[in-house]
């Protein structure tokens, strides 16, 4: 993870977005005074934050939260003792006290009435379930991606946040970065002509089932709570390798794979460019090393396993009838004509999450929808899950986004969900 030391405030982002001409891509500006954060923030105006499963990525996102003057981080929950300790040290060092509480069971931290919002950065196995528990407990949620393990979880996540009225932000921070916003702007305002093809680079396309490894000696619960770590995943004995949450139940238990790891970012950007944040592609077909999908509006989405851009990680390319644009994590652009890039704005490489975190915090106060709200995340994840299912079955599948069903395909339909291990449910 890189953030290149970029901690820019919201106004700087807006300025950047302004230069990018990214009108609908930029959030509303809300005066600090309206949000109770001009000057010193009164304790009553602070957003009290807790964290669940704060590992490497989580620590970075937490550091973005800690930079915000209207945030007070008060407690961390983790199944691993070493991580509980290190996050507590991080928070206590920030505030100069010893107040950060630690928990093993997330239900205990969620039961605290004084906490407004949760940062959830567990492995993907827990994301949807923990986010749902948090919403039911009345917390707003910033949740790392991939946010769901399958299509059904994606839908239930959106439904839960709709019903509870809680604020949700998926950790797809590229939604808040000006270079991606600018490329999306070009695609959506017709500067490329009618959109024809979108390219995303979810490296690691391919599926595998998460299995049952040989048992290792199980540590005491205080060191690693294995039962809680497994959470909603089917039971298996303790195994050290599976403690790497990055790989455990990756992107979905039944047919997990790398598609969700990067697709939740780059496919999400393509969804945004195609103005299809409330629907999914209708056709998915493995073609060589690639997965080709097609939307009802005729636009083709090419999910590529191979890189093709020298523009850093997570590259996307949008092709219209009269022009094209590419961008990626180094914040550079390539385009069919330099004129397209005249107002591309400031370069902010390294996919920092500061703006995304600020967007979340502002929405906690205004109760508006975040840039990567549960509905947006739901549909971009569904595209990735449907692609995964086509890859697993190794054949073309047709999807009806209105019914959220594959058409005439029982096998594909059964892959839409997976039972959770008790007592967990969505």
């Amino acid at each position, binding site marked *: 993870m890189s953030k290149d030391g970029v901690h820019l405030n919201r106004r700087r982002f807006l300025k950047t977005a302004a230069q990018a001409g990214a009108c609908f891509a930029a959030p509303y*500006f809300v*005066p600090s005074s309206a949000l109770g954060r001009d000057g010193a923030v009164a304790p009553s105006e602070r957003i009290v934050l807790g964290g669940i499963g704060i590992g490497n990525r989580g620590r970075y996102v937490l550091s973005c939260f800690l930079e915000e003057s209207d945030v007070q981080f008060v407690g961390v929950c983790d199944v691993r003792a070493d991580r509980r300790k290190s996050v507590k040290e991080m928070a206590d060092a920030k505030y100069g006290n010893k107040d950060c509480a630690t928990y093993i069971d997330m239900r205990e931290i969620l039961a605290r009435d004084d906490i407004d919002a949760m940062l959830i950065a567990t492995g993907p196995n827990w994301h949807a379930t923990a986010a749902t528990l948090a919403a039911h407990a009345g917390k707003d949620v910033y949740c790392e991606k991939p946010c769901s393990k399958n299509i059904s979880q994606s839908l239930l996540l959106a439904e839960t946040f709709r*019903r509870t*009225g809680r604020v949700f932000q998926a950790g797809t921070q590229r939604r808040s970065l000006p270079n991606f916003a600018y490329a999306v702007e070009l695609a959506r305002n017709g500067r490329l002509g009618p959109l024809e093809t979108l390219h995303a680079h979810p490296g690691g396309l391919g599926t595998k089932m998460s299995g049952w490894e040989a048992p290792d000696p199980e540590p005491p619960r205080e060191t690693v709570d294995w039962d809680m770590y497994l959470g909603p995943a*089917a039971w298996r004995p303790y195994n050290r390798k599976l403690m790497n949450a990055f790989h455990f139940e990756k992107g979905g238990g*039944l047919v997990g794979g790398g598609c969700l790891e990067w697709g939740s970012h780059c496919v999400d950007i393509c969804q945004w460019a195609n103005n299809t944040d409330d629907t999914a592609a209708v056709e998915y077909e493995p073609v060589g090393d690639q997965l080709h999908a097609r939307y009802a509006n005729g636009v083709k989405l090419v999910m590529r396993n191979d890189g093709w851009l020298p523009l850093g990680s997570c590259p996307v390319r949008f092709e219209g009838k009269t022009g094209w644009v590419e961008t990626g994590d180094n914040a550079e652009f390539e385009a069919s004509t330099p004129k397209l890039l*005249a107002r591309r704005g400031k370069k902010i490489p390294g996919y920092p999450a500061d703006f995304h975190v600020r967007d979340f915090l502002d929405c906690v106060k205004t*109760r508006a929808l975040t840039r990567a709200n549960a509905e947006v995340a739901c549909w971009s994840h569904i595209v990735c899950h449907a692609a995964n299912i086509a890859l697993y079955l190794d054949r073309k599948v047709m999807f009806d986004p209105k019914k959220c069903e594959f058409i005439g395909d029982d096998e594909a339909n059964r892959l839409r969900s997976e039972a959770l291990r*008790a007592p967990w449910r969505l």
Partner: protein
Amino acid sequence: MILKTRYFVCFALLVAIAIGSLSPATAAERSAASRAKERELIAVLRSDAPPKDKAIPCKQLAIYGTAEAVPALAPLLADKDLASWALIAMEAIPGPAADKALRDAMGELQGRLLIGVINSIAVRRDTQAVPGLIKKLEASDAQVASAAAIALGRIGGQPAAQALVESLDDAPAGVRSEVAEGCILCAEHFLAQGNSTKAIKLYDTIRQADVSTQRVLEAIRGAILARGSDGIPLLIEQLESKDRAKLGIGLRTARELPGTDVTQALAAELNRLPVNRQPLLLLALADRKDAVVLPTVLKAAKNGAKPLRITAIGLLIHLGSVSCVPAVLEAALEGDAGLTAAAQETLERLPGKDVDAALLSRLGPAKGKQRQLLIELVAERRIEAALPAIMESVTDKDAGIRGAALQAVTILGEADQAAMVVKLLQEARGSKARADVTRALLAVAGRAGTACLADLLPLMKSDDSNLRMVGLRAMAIVGGPDALAAVKTALKDKKEAVKDEAVRTLSTWPNNWPEDAEAAKILLTLTESGKKTSHKVLGLRGYLQYVRGSKKLRGKEKVTRIHELLPQIKRAEEKRLAIAVLGSVPSSEALELLMTLAKDRAVTEEVYSAIVNLTRRDSRGLSKDQRREALKTVVEKSKNNGTKNRALDTLRKLR
């Protein structure tokens, strides 16, 4: 026997993988393959295979299982290790057999095993399970009762709703929240079926019940939405509530409840709310995407408390049009910093060519602060047609206007403006003024390229050595043979500082690399016969960068150049550049030179890392044996674990 079973399991899994990877097949062929697959998987479950080997077959039965698999799966629901795996299949297998098996299990199991079964019944929405679930509402295990309450909510219907409402008051504290949630889920079912009366009744029951705040909020939201326009008073009640949580759900619901009458009611409410809540409601109004909101926003932008005005001005970016320009310009010039910032931002981002035209037409006659603001705006909006007007202001008496104009030239200026900017530079007095004009000049040079070279060359002949140095920086940006010739001349400048700048400029000659071979020749000469050590070092660095980036030189030529230069490469910094060149050429000569460089401890690890990178690529330039030998050396001698591991990994792949 166990060995046999394992063999069988492996075979079955192989079959499964093969089925999964079949090339496009007809639905009938797929169906036949699925049945065969199901039989294999059932056989695994019925075998004496250990639990480990039954786990994945359970998962696969979720895809391929039918009623035939249910008898094999059902006993596993009571198996503490395999129950969660078996449920994956049972939850997915369609048909009454799986429903019945789950209902039967509900009558027999306890604790977590029972909860799992209840949760799966909920997902399957088995209406025949409702009586059994109602009984479970009274279970002594709070988690079981809670699961039953949610399951009843998921299934929905009058019997479920009635049972949940009846149990609400007496439910233990640990269950009541789930009972309330069940009621809310039932209400959603009623609403989806068009029965808003029943839905409202349920929502109202929960919002008045002694349940958690979050459940009450959900019920309030549901009660408002289910009532439609009749829900406006309840919505307004939340917006006016002293309870922040209720205000929060009110703001959220204000975005959801459809109807122009709702928008109008909310707009009317705006001025009745306390000042600190007005911006929040205005934002919610804007999110309704209702055209009738615009007059309210425009009015709020002109009048009202400052936070409201700032919010409204910001919203005009998304909602406004060219008609809003006069009002926002006026706000920008009121003299309040907050309003100015918001208004300026809106005017920079408000979309439309008509907005460009409106600003441009005002720029001509504008004076004072308004002129300064308009110059800033046209620059930010990249309105090139404004350049003539901007250039009239670069010598304005007003420092603010002058500064804005120069900044605008920095953003927009092209070749046509270059001569004027050079003149400004020649006339600039004071270091800040000169720095500002220099910035503009370099930006113009970057955009105009060689088209502005003729305008820049006078700087190189200036009597002022500082101007000659600015000229050198501009030459590097412009590039090309003529610019290079001017820099070459500057190497003989009478001033040492100018000579130094010329060397620095050459060493990072950026624009035409690697095509400009002439620069390389000069750098090589500096390397060999520079008059100062710093000139030799910069010459060497520049030359190494040229070799590295050159697309004309072939790999072999690059290695030869490095080989020839090696005696002069003495410092670690330059050795690293040489290593970078060699590390990009897969050849035995490059490898040999890298090994030579590895003897210098200051760069040993960099060399080893380069060797690993070099040998990872499959290339004709290096045989497998050569790659293997080099990697073995790295494994043996590197002290960096990362490099060593990469070397080992590459070695493994080579075998």
